[in-house]
């Protein structure tokens, strides 16, 4: 079996897998990174979203062979050590999840959006997040969590009296 070198969450990994194995299954079954979820297998639900060189990509529809030498970030690699990504914190603060299954993919799509838009509009959110389905219907909280994460990141002052970021 061929061996492929990819960088996952900053670590170089050598994968001995069939050339057509989708990145999703290499992450889940070979590397044990089960935070990336299987939902449809045809890039329609977004549950398997990861970052490839900073772009949100459906890992079910990208082969391991296609991402050799590239940098993959999964939900497990989004936090900086003990420091949660602002989106992860916002997801907890806003109690976004119901079943929670799609949320890793939602957060990864949102993180790619925040990386290019400091202060995304509702329309930016619609465009970036339309590929991520949530069966429980948590869309409104997803939207507000993205807005609050953007605010959290750019906030320079925390007003303890009003509990507001200014």
């Amino acid at each position, binding site marked *: 079996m061929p061996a492929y070198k990819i960088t996952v969450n900053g670590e170089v990994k050598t994968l001995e897998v069939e050339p057509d194995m989708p990145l999703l299954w290499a992450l889940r079954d070979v590397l044990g990174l089960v935070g990336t979820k299987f939902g449809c297998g045809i890039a329609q639900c977004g549950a398997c979203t990861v970052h490839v060189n900073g772009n949100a990509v459906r890992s079910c529809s990208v082969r391991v062979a296609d991402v050799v030498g590239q940098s993959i970030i999964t939900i497990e690699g989004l936090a900086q050590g003990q420091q949660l990504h602002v989106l992860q914190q916002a997801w907890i603060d806003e109690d976004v999840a119901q079943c929670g299954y799609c949320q890793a993919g939602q957060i990864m799509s949102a993180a790619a959006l925040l990386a290019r838009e400091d202060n995304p509009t509702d329309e930016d959110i619609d465009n970036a997040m339309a590929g991520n389905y949530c069966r429980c*219907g948590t869309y409104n909280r997803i939207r507000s969590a993205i807005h609050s994460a953007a605010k959290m990141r750019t906030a320079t002052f925390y007003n303890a009296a009003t509990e507001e970021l200014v």
Partner: protein
Amino acid sequence: MSDLIESVKAAVSQHKVNRRGFLKLTGIAGSGFIIASIAPLIMAEENLGTLVGSAELNAFVEISSDGTITIYSSNPEMGQGIKTALPMIIAEEMGAKWEDVKVLQSSVDATRFGPQQAGGSTTVPRTFDQMRRMGASAREMLRSAGSEAMEVSRDELKVAESKVTHTTGKFLTFGQLAALAIRQKVPDEDSLMFKAREDYTIIGTSVSGVDNMMISTGLALFGIDTRVPEMLYACYQKCPAIGGKVVKANIDEIRKLPGVVDAFVLDGNDDPRQLLDGVAIVGTSTWAAFSARNSLEVQWDESSASKDSWSGLVERATQLHGTRGKELVIDKGDVKEAYANPENTTLEAFYEYPFVSHFTMEPMNCTAHYRKGSDASNDSLELWLPTQGPARGYQIAKSMFGLEEDQVTIHMMRMGGSFGRRVYFEYIAEAIAISKQVNKPVKLTWSREDDLHHDFYRSGGFQSVKGSVDKQGRLIAFEDHFMGMNYDGRPVSGSRFPDTEFPILNVKNAHASKTFFDIKTPCGPWRAPGSNTTAFVVQSFLDELSHAAGRDYLEFLLEIMGERRWFEEGNVRSLNTGRAADVIKLAAKEAGWGKSMPKGSGLGLAFYFSHAGHIAEVAEVSVDKNRHLTVHKVTVAVDVGPIINMSGATSQVEGAVIDGLSTMMAQKITMEAGRIQQDNFHNYEVLRIPDSPRVDVHFIQSDFGPTGLGEPALPPLAPAVGNAIFAATGHRVRKMPLSEQGYTI
């Protein structure tokens, strides 16, 4: 004080080596449940650091010397928020600070935890008092410990904020008292007092879900995330025509494919709830199994398989429009007299709704490890189950594999959605059978196509309705011919039309009858079974009648509710017209009912009572000339009694509205020649974030006991939107999904 801490430490270490076995301390009459102070037998989660040296006050509550309060959540979590809500009830009663609480999923053990299932929005009402008893019992043991340690009377102690405080201000924390508390007498159930609602500090607040950190960081949590040493991966191919049997398959070829460990035919027992015939492929990864399946060729014997046809059902039902069913539900007053009266206005209509799929985001899966012993009596089985009823794993193991309960270990796993799907267990039986065959732990994962082709669907159906309003515009007669489905001679889940269906109890003349069509397509409960379709029919048709009478639907509906009464006093499953009127008025007020709307826009109101929840919704929509629909806002008023977790409850309502809209918009399962014709997201469309309406939720926290909220907010959505479309356009929606009538969103 330091002496005390030392003695507590000593007791903790003593306790550590002397973990008690089964010590049933007191029975709770009536519920069949026992407050058992016993050590956890199976740890469902690995991170048990804080449990070292901990003290169990009862099966649900442990306190560590560091002050961590571990509360076991005993019921399955599928997104309904029970893993957070039930521990909140315990924490409230015991006087804990929520920040000190850590929640772990309990083991599966009905003796210790009582019935462990979730479904029918029953968990909160069923367990509310049980959780309160667990909390109150722990609280009183802590109070006794405080009394002993401080040498003061129990009456002089207050238990709150994770500490026991004397009237002088002197206090000891729960952590300090942990070891002493377990030595206290477990209080008699009858002596337990519950906190008054006005004293609540946790119940009714907004608490973020206890698994949110794990969810947001991608830690293994769901059934499908299970990984055990030496685990293999499997898929299972069943006949596309439901119930077909394997004649032969190219398994020798499949076995040679890369990554395939084994492939074999499983002989089923023809029961879709247990094990249907199929071909299992076991590989070194899910992909190896899925990929090999592309080369699988199976010859099926479809002689006993489903031949169901949706178009055939539509044809038969359409012919029955305007007739009555053979099975009478109720004949009250004289509807015919009302129809015959020329002063009355009489309408007839035919409504249709399709089969739909549960379509959970986490496909069906199960990890099973069947270990063969020296003989069958030494066999053992370990299961990782994402299911609404984990104890059913024991029943399957017994009935299908001959294993006794003590040979089986079950881990209750979080579900990535269920909506009623995971009350069935065939994916569990499949995983066990496959693991037994290969004698290795196996994770069975269904593809999305498996999931859509082999669901226990929400039954489709038809209702032929008729009704009259008198010359004053009052509802005078209502009639419904319900057409549902029979499977194996019995109505499927949701195919019901009870004689208490609204507005039968409220109207003078009513007639209801039923017809059933035999099908072989498995059906099952789907979020608010029966209610989710009948609400659409009845609330849309009553809106039709109100328009025919030239009445405002708000006023018309309130008039039908009539005087404030509870049809069956004391039965929360019975409609209370007072509670109904209150939520209807509140939703209307908050939505601005009666305000003038621009052309092409409209408001639609609907009410439905199900699962003990009284819920009214007003949809605000606009529709353009190409039937492009925008649902701007849905205003919801809910009375399910006191709310446990405000955030979770609001979330359930928001989700139900969006789920309801997603379903009515474009979802439809059809079958021809027994084959389900939808495969995946490309031909089973779902609502996405850009089309998600604003949801404005209002609670009436009445003094009735708390009831569940996983389901009842869904049924009113479809008629509210349908009625709003009528208000906006004059087009009456009598058929779902909307996409088939040219609507887009």
